[in-house]
């Protein structure tokens, strides 16, 4: 599976990032702010957030406006807007390339023209861009796409695909889901398309939680379903399961302990592949800080 890659600061705006998802979406984001806001958009007590999404070709349509509104509402709950009243934080996301879908039936399948597969990449780019621009944030988040395809036999449950959702997989899916979580486990965004029942949604929710924040319990809950990927997740997350047990004992200090564990073993987390998306984001930032601190090497 190709890993997601990211670069921080490729442009000369206040903050910028390029992100390539495992599925092949490449997006460049730029943020400027806090800057002067137009009088009609000015908010007396907080910063205005402007999100612009530009498609890979042509001009933005209703589809982009819809994605912009989803991003806007997510980012508004993340950015500490009251720090900069009467200013503007302007975020532009340019889609550079999208995976080729034409060979798989193109617009014949509704899922292939859906805007949901793009959403996690947009959210991830937006976060990295804001981190690069040192915009004060309440928390970080991670976002993932899940596809549900019909059960192979009537006695089994529908299959949930998590990582690397190919166009074939999209075409055969009955429903698509995007979830966004904060590291503390709060759900920030949940978008679903297609037909599914509440039981499937709950299973998808648990899987998404495991992918995003690597909660040991969530993975254990789905491991018994015979899905190879779930098994792999459990393996990678064994180290984290210990943490979650400790978290239960010691209420209140959850994040503190979590961060302490990561701090204590930075060498290990760098060598191994990140166990969840949150770990991956941290790795990207660590690499950037290391580059910024290069002048400190005096040898």
């Amino acid at each position: 599976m190709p890993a997601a890659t990211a670069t921080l600061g490729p442009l000369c705006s206040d903050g910028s990032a390029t992100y390539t998802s495992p599925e092949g979406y490449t997006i460049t984001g730029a943020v400027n702010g806090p800057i002067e806001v137009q009088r009609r958009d000015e908010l007396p007590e907080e910063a205005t957030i402007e999100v612009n999404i530009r498609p890979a070709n042509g001009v933005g349509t209703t589809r982009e406006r819809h994605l912009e509104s989803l991003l806007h509402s997510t980012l508004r709950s993340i950015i500490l807007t009251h720090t900069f009243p009467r200013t503007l934080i302007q975020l532009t996301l340019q889609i550079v390339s999208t995976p080729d879908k034409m060979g798989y039936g193109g617009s014949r399948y509704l899922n292939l023209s859906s805007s949901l597969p793009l959403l996690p990449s947009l959210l991830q780019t937006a976060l990295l861009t804001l981190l690069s621009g040192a915009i004060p944030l309440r928390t970080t988040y991670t976002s993932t796409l899940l596809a549900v395809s019909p059960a192979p036999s009537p006695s089994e449950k529908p299959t949930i695909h998590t990582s690397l959702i190919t166009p074939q997989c999209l075409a055969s899916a009955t429903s698509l889901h995007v979830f966004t979580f904060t590291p503390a486990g709060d759900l920030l965004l949940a978008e679903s398309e297609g037909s599914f029942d509440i039981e499937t949604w709950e299973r998808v929710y648990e899987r998404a939680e495991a992918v995003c924040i690597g909660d040991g319990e969530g993975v254990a809950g789905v491991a018994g379903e015979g899905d190879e990927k779930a098994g792999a997740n459990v393996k990678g997350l064994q180290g984290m399961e210990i943490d979650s047990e400790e978290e239960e004992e010691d209420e209140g200090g959850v994040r503190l302990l979590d961060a302490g564990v990561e701090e204590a073993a930075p060498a290990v987390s760098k060598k191994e592949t990140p166990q969840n998306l949150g770990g991956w984001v941290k790795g990207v930032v660590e690499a950037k800080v290391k580059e910024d601190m290069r002048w400190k090497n005096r040898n």
Partner: protein
Amino acid sequence: MASTPVILPGDVVPAEHLPSTKKALTLGPGLRHTPPSTITATTAGALSVDSKKNAIWIEHNNGRYVPHTNDLIIATVRQTGSDAYQCAITPHTPSAILPNLAFEGATKKTRPQLASGQLVYARISSAPKHAETELECMSASSGKSEGMGPLKGGMVYDISLGMARRLMLSPAKMREQGLVVLEALAEKVQFEIAVGRNGRVWVDGGNVAMTLAVGTCIVETDRGGLDFREQRRLVEKKLKGV
């Protein structure tokens, strides 16, 4: 500052990284306090601790400069008003006000005439959240200019905010931080320099060639993140032709 853990927004600063003195803890940029005793990060970067001053902050190199009281900055005059100049600290932000009388020895009759586009080295006298930023070019207590005022000649370069902060350190501290470019330049040539916290540095080497040589040395040190041997090599190379 042996260990500099990287933290992300929303991470709680672990208690073992907090300086353990009885003095009140000072929180620098990138951190916020949630009563009673939780300290959370708001920006991503390396956590820096100064146990002597009992201060803690997040070091990052990027982002836009946000005015803070007492920062020394290089501003550009945008407009000349009847009683104040409108100055730009960073592009696309509302103007800061520099009163005509905020210069050393300025009276209504003898005040410096600044054209639009002129550079001034000024201090931020107040930076309220809900009102305009105010600048001054003299010390409020002594009335002396203390090096501030209009910058004539020379050239201005954009550098990263982290580099601007490092250039404003004392020479000993600068060496300790591995920044020797200024020292290496000063050993060979004479030049004047003014560093603004807003990520701008003004250089005057007396002639154009010298100004460019000194300016590019500083900018390249910043862009390339050069260590101290590379800095000395760069200075030698740039000064060869001048």
